[in-house]
């Protein structure tokens, strides 16, 4: 009956994302090799499956007999045949031997990154991705920009729990282990945008922990990164809120809504008013008001926002848990300012449903953020 499944899905198979029937499109040097092995095994499997099922059905039909038809049973068929049994022990043994060798060969290629790989530092934390380009001092969120035809090596770790970075089009996957550096490498062969998933279960919004890999030709890549490296410094302060909304907020989006719905964390809508009024109440019973003002813990409301971004565990708003990771070391000073400004001017940026009022452009490069999907 598996044929049913096969036929039913055949057409869709072709339809999906320019891939083949079994595999998505391949866009890395490793992918072709993986696909070849996959289809090699496929052919072996089709053969054996057809063979065995045919034999099964044939025997079932050929030797069917109702109880009333046979009064007694004969014992003429053989119960044992050493050559036959040896055959179907040794032949599979040889086949799997070959398979092991092929697999190991491909795998060693996958783990052995070229020396001149372009380094990227990846931090996966609940439930967003951060990609840092050490060569440019650039931090990307929810989008990874990589050069075309150049080996890229991701050195990855996680501050909280296990995650796993998976790019189907590149056929690469590796877990991010907290307290450890893991790494994987690939060399993209086609410009374009590809999906990046988290495939190690990491809690509530595991299935929203998505990102996009953008493969750009070398020159485009360099000037894109160059721009990113300078953007928030070049911007003048009036553009900072829009910048924060477009480029930073997607790391908050999975927990903090813009439309007043409370998620894992409080909504950003009206957060600034609450902060100014100091009406926020914390799990330790204190209210923000009591801590603000000269001599208080926070001289100005901005400091509270800063503190919540850098030390989220310090004060936890009532009815919420301390699920938020710190962004210490991931946001530069000016980016934190941008966040504060965004919160201040949120009403002018988004309507009450949280949709951007006029999509503000940060730079020409079209930016797609995987995290909102």
């Amino acid at each position, binding site marked *: *009956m*598996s044929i*049913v*499944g*096969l036929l*039913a*899905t055949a057409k*869709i198979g072709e339809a999906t994302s320019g*891939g083949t029937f*079994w595999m*998505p499109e391949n866009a890395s040097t490793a992918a072709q090799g*993986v696909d070849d*092995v996959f289809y090699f095994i496929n052919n*072996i*499997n089709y053969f054996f*499956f057809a063979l*065995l099922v045919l*034999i*099964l059905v044939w*025997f*079932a039909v050929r030797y069917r007999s*109702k*109880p*009333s038809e*046979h009064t*007694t*049973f004969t*014992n003429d*068929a053989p*119960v*044992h*045949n050493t050559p036959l*049994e040896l055959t*179907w022990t040794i032949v*599979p043994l040889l086949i*799997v031997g070959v398979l*092991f060798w*092929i697999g*190991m*060969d*491909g795998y*060693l290629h996958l783990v052995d990154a070229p020396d001149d790989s372009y380094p990227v530092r990846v931090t996966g934390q609940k439930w967003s991705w951060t990609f840092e380009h050490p060569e440019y001092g650039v931090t990307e969120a929810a989008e990874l920009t990589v050069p075309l035809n150049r080996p890229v090596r991701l050195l990855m770790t996680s501050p*909280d729990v*296990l995650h*796993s970075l*998976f790019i*189907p*089009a590149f056929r*690469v*996957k*590796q877990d991010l*282990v*907290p*307290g*450890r550096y*893991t790494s994987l490498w690939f060399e993209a062969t086609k410009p374009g945008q590809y999906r990046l998933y988290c*495939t190690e*279960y990491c*809690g509530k919004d595991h*299935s929203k922990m998505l990102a996009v890999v953008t493969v750009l030709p070398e020159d485009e890549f360099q000037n894109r990164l160059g721009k990113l490296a300078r953007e928030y410094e070049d911007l003048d302060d009036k553009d900072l809120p829009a910048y924060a909304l477009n480029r930073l907020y997607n790391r908050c989006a999975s927990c903090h809504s813009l439309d007043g719905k409370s998620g894992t964390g409080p909504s950003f809508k009206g957060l600034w008013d609450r902060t100014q009024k100091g009406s926020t109440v914390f799990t330790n019973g204190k209210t923000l008001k009591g801590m603000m003002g000269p001599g208080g813990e926070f001289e100005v409301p901005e400091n509270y926002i800063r503190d919540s971004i850098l030390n989220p565990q310090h004060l936890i708003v009532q009815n919420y848990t301390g699920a938020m990771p710190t962004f210490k070391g991931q946001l530069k000073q000016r980016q934190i300012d941008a966040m504060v400004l965004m919160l201040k001017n949120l009403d002018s940026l988004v309507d009450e449903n949280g949709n951007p009022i006029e999509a503000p452009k940060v730079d020409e490069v079209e930016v797609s953020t995987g995290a909102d999907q």
Partner: protein
Amino acid sequence: MTVEGDDSMTTTESRPLDAPALEVDNYLTYTRGIRSWILTLDHKRIGVMYLISVLACFLLGGIFALLVRTQLVVPDGLIMSQDEYNQAFTIHGGVMVFLVIIPGIPAALGNFILPIMLGAKDVAFPRLNLFSYWLWVLGAIFLVSAIFGGLDTGWTFYTPYSIDQNSAMGGVIPAVTGAFLLGFASIFTGMNFIVTIHRLRPDGMTWFRMPLFLWSLYATAVIQVLATPVLGITLALLAVERAFGIGIFNPALGGDPVLYQHFFWFYSHPAVYIMVLPAMGVVSELIAVHSHRHIFGYAYIAWSSVAIAIFSFLVWGHHMFTSGQSPLMSVIFSFITFSVAIPSGIKVFNWLATMYKGAISWNTSMFYGMGFIVLFIIGGLTGLYLGVISVDVHLHDTYFIVAHFHYTMMGSSLIGFIGGLHHWWPKITGKMFNENAGRIAFMLFFVGYNMTFFTQFMLGSHGMPRRYATYPADAGFQTYHIISTIGSYIMAIGFFTMAGYFIASLFVGRKAAANPWGGRSLEWQCTSPPPHDNFSEQPAVGDCYDFSVLRWDDETNGYVWREDVAHPGHESEHTASS
């Protein structure tokens, strides 16, 4: 009356039909009252209690499976929030693995059949047996209650998620306590089986006269005894880690989360064979009995069971190819992994060879046997992709894995269980179920099953990660999910049909003959249902796959001993109670 089937088998002349039926009490009527059940030392009653509990849990797990499937019909999720979905698949996984598949065949069917098949009056330690059942119940209560108290770790309890108070919900410690107790229930069952098979074999029942079901149960018991304690200590460490933060597995304290995965899979990979080995044994019985043909390559199958039991301890690392395990170990484990494929293959070939020149009755049980072979072939062959490391890197933690282990765990283990249930239903209840209904239910199940899970192979190879409550709308996953969900509903209809005719058979079912299918192993020599002591006289131990001594008997609607063949039962003077 059932006694006639019995006598006509154990004596060479059959009693005339008009003779008054003897009032022979069976294990159901032997004693009455609720106390006689909850405190029973009778392996058959314990087996039945296990059976009922397991089926109840199966219903629970199945309902959550349907919820999960329903959620995934639309990309943004149809009925559940992220959290609810995470709990739903955790409940489904935890219940199905710990409460249904692992105890299913050994504890339920095994407890009932093993001593009878062996020709013993009971398992070696009846009190331990009863204790292990109630331990199991306690563990089940813990696990299920924890699950409803909020458990979202998945059935694998991976660290550090499960030990992080801010991440995983509160249910972790009760859940691992439950799993711990269930583990020890499973250990005691295994010990009981090993000792029973070693020490309670009657005269004439040599090792290589044992039905293959016993061989597979023996191999399973070995795994249960050797692997489950490690699960126990692992879960204990996990609980302590979560409660006190001892820093063995918690990276924030210098611990090592990958070490937890080593601990976990050292048990949980062998556990996969705790699930599938007994099913293989059942199928060996189904194929041989319903083809009325001597099993082909008996010794080969027997030894392959033992080989699988040993190898299963050497391959756990293939669950960790992308988990941060060192490449060296990945290669080593991949190598050993392939070696375990061979014994499984051998079994399939032998089953097919057994059907050759047989006299195959198209009974429901036989259909499940053949269904098992087909699904197990798919499950096994798709295992090849995953053993090949470079391909596994792409497929790991995607729906391809989900599909693969459903083909082995459900398509094989559970089908073995259900097939065995049909096979021994007349023996357990003394009633026949409706064969046509059975065949229809099987077809529904088989079609639905493949619709549900075969599509998931494509989902996975196209990159759909597992444990996703929602998925990108434009990634082309939705159509597969819809087909898969429809399939799951069809499957559900099949299962409810099954429940229907089983329940019906209890009330309106025809009385079962002692040997309705023409089985040759000892459980078919006692009445259905069996008497309290299993055998009113020492059964005839012979070649348990030589069907030529049986003939169909229209009067009893069962198979009886051929009058023209001497009954080996009278050669052995030994009786168990002397």
